[in-house]
């Protein structure tokens, strides 16, 4: 199938064809959602190279498990959950939760127009808060799902999400109120 035709297909159609072994169709899904998955992992605190590595593993796993995706929710949400879980496993294996370092608030950059994007605001969160907020709002996972994935008590997860959102609200509010510019694409 020509690339131009692939671009006209919906994610669900592409996933169905990928489940039947369609590598080109799956490639189109990677093209569409690769940046979003890598972006989510970076927001969770992964270094760019690690984020790319985990995202690649997630897409490869997604290709093998494509038949499990039946259009409940979005493909982006589905693949993001796979990526987030893989990242958590990788982090747990490397025991990176041992040291939680509070971000130095002076590191947060506010540009001349007063705009601070989400990625910069996320730097004000500590690692666990950042992961919890990203899983909740970036990967669309519920609090119990996050608790299970991170092996943390549900109440702790809720606290991390709430504290993280409070920090984001405090950081993003002035920028949003001043009508900051956006360089993001949907």
């Amino acid at each position, binding site marked *: 199938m020509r690339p131009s035709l692939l671009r006209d297909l919906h994610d669900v159609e592409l996933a169905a064809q990928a489940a039947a072994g369609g*590598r080109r169709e799956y*490639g189109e899904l990677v093209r569409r959602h*690769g*940046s979003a998955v890598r972006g989510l992992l970076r927001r969770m605190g992964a270094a760019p190279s690690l984020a790319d590595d985990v995202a690649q593993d997630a897409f490869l796993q997604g290709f093998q498990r494509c038949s499990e995706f039946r259009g409940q929710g979005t493909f982006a949400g589905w693949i993001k959950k796979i990526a987030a879980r893989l990242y958590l496993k990788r982090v747990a294996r490397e025991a990176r939760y041992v040291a939680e370092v509070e971000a130095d608030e002076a590191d947060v950059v506010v540009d001349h127009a007063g705009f601070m994007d*989400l990625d910069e605001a996320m730097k004000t969160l500590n690692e666990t808060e950042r992961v919890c907020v990203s899983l909740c709002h970036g990967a669309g996972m519920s609090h119990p799902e996050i608790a299970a994935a991170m092996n943390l008590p549900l109440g702790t997860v809720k606290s991390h999400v709430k504290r993280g*959102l409070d920090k*984001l609200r405090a950081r*993003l509010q002035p920028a949003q*109120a001043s009508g900051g510019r956006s360089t*993001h694409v949907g």
Partner: protein
Amino acid sequence: MSADEFDPMIERLFAQSPRLADEALFLATVQASMEKRSRWRTLALTGAGLVGGVLAVREGVNFNFSADGETTLTQGVRTAAATAQGAAQSGLEGLGVGSFDLMDGSGMMAFWIVAGALVAVLAAGLVKLSQDV
């Protein structure tokens, strides 16, 4: 900003992702990995099929029907087995190994050497595959 206003905003911000500059490179990397895994899977399946096929032929050659309780069904199966055996033998002759007798000692030895080599290749493939995963 109230929580009611903030929550949709944060959802929207998370839903927006910047297009990364090396998007094409990432896609190429994923596709290359998919190709590589596909090749290994094909190799593993081919190897498994080969081993299974060889075992099936060997069992077919060795199959010994009981003379007791002779029925039309067992006669038919025996005829089919003999036909398969003949086909396998002519296949071996076609490959230039017509003297290879699966029933004698040297033939069995050769069979197990080949089977062992295939298993070793498969094991190596699986190890490589697990490293890729």
